[in-house]
């Protein structure tokens, strides 16, 4: 029967395909290169070049490698415990080697960020810009740009914010403000302490609107 022959061929193909390291989705194989994992696994949420479609998942293009490394290590060791972290990232990072983490961080840092849509009213974005550039003196909130760069490109452990999804930024600011689920970002607990929900929405809308430079 033709169907039987085809089925046997399928089984044969499966056997032959035991190892396909250049196009593997195996998160437990230390021989799979970081760039391969980025394309075959991470791209499902974060996009092939680190620009994600869904605001559920952060853009990673041109992200600071030190920040990416710290996050992946935080997921791997379960020190980062916010829901977005453990629901999606604990499992995928559990077997990553230090070398793969380094390769992933290098891969995303080298990607070109895509311009994001401006979302929200102009007044809100302007209010966000005010917070980003000058802080809120009456609430002892420092300007975001002092650590994340005036253009929002980030530096070292301070992540790039320019062009990040507003929804993601707002959720993470809330995590920093209300929980201790991201101990590596403990400094943000102090920074975000006095932000109102309107402040958070404003600064999130502004950083999303920041164009890549």
């Amino acid at each position, binding site marked *: 029967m033709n169907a039987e022959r085809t089925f046997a061929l399928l089984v044969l193909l*499966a056997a032959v395909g035991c190892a396909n390291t250049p196009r593997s989705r195996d998160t437990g194989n230390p021989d799979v290169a970081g760039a391969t994992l980025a394309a075959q696994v991470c791209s499902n949420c974060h996009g092939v070049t680190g620009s994600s479609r869904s605001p559920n998942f952060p853009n990673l293009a041109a992200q600071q490698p030190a920040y990416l490394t710290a996050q992946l290590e935080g997921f791997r060791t379960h020190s980062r415990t916010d829901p977005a972290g453990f629901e999606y990232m*604990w499992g995928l990072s559990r077997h990553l080697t230090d070398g793969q983490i380094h390769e992933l961080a290098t891969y995303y840092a080298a990607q070109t960020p895509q311009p994001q849509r401006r979302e929200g009213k102009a007044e809100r974005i302007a209010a966000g810009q005010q917070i980003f550039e000058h802080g809120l003196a009456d609430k002892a909130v420092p300007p975001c740009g002092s650590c994340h760069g005036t253009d929002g490109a980030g530096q070292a452990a301070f992540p790039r914010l320019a062009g990040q999804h507003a929804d993601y930024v707002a959720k993470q600011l809330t995590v920093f403000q209300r929980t201790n689920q991201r101990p590596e970002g403990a400094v943000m607990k102090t920074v975000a302490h006095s932000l109102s929900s309107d402040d958070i929405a404003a600064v999130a809308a502004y950083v999303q609107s920041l164009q890549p430079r």
Partner: protein
Amino acid sequence: MHRTTPLFGTALRRLRRFGAALALLLLPTLAAAVPTFARQTGQNCQACHAGGQFPELTAYGRLFKLTGYTLGSRTLPLSGMAVLSDSRVANTTKSDDPKADFAKNDQLLFATASAFLAGKVTDNFGAFVQITYDNYASQSDDGHFHGHTNIDNVDLRYADRVVDANRDIIWGVSANNNPSVSDVWNTAAAWMQYVPVPSPGSSQFVDGNSPYPGFAAGGNIAGLNAYLFWNQWLYVEAGGYRSATGIASFMSAGVDRAEKTRLQGTNPYWRVALSHDWGPNSLMVGTSGMHAKVFDDPLDTSDPSTLHRFRDIGVDAQYQYLLDPHVFTAQVAYTRERQHVPAFLADQPVTDVNGNDLPNTNVFDRTNVLRAKASYVYDAHYGGSIAFFNLTGTTDSAFYDPTRVVGNVSANPGVRGFTYEAFYTPIQYVRLGLQYTRYDKFNGASRNYDGAGRNASDNNTLFFYVWAAY
């Protein structure tokens, strides 16, 4: 008891039996989440299942499936699932024998259990195999129910993906036993059903018996489909199905020989879909179809003149909005089915219960099924949905049946109604659900559909379930 002209009674009984067997095969199987996949990726169920409402897949879940269940790291590929349920039919008095017609009405039952063998095998090969035990699969003459185990959904995949900044090509081959079980959208015939459902032996009117768009060939057959997903935009799948015999007989393991679908030759199946994701939104518009030649009697495949020839063509669309903590989904599916009835069953005279002549039985039957559903889940814990179903079809004297409760004196197959569901998922491995199915029309009529005073609304059913999987 129904009466027909003696000459054609046998043929009509066969047609009815065929219809009943097909209905059984078309009953939604109890497919759902597979925790072994969650262990393989280390992720929560909701990464792949929208708001944790199984089996609906997220964009990520669709890619996980299309890449052959190979993402993650190998783990123990075994999961189990069990369902407790209690269903209550609105009216159990309009019946000659309520104890038989509503045997397990309003009783908490251990309804079904499934074992899954599922997961990554190699970098390119993965499997999803479900084996289901139905605790109330059959009933003997003394009224006792008997459990039965058989193979359920099978999907063995070889897949590969070439992806870079300029292209994303996922292709693969699926060996499976149920047309559209290989599909990744929840409007596919194999996946649109509410899960879980009670076994038919415990409640015959609950959602499982309300119509879903589907393919006449049903499950327990053997197919080989090739598919391509190009730039996460265009999906094309084509393949063929044959009887599950020889090396593929495991595709129907445990299914009684008299209930197996026996096909003539290779029966083509196809699927085309356009998908677009933007922001938290995901939209799919698609079409699918199948031609199937099904032997009237699975135990006798010697005579091609006993073949039922089906042509199913469907269109479907799904919209998802997924942005934590909100999940909203809207789905619609519509299938048109045309059946060419075998010559020995077509154009046969029929008389009704009073001895009056009815029109001769049809040469062709047509059935149209529309189903639409909207659902919302908050924080993967609290959810609800509403679904509308409407089956319309040609009146055919072959459907005439004055049997009380299950009969059909209009000889029209029409069924129309709504299903409402609310559920709570305290942890991702357990779900409690309360579901209500309301019939506005049943077996072709709103009132007195069985000729003995039973109305469609008498079949309205309340269904409570506890689903657990690990």
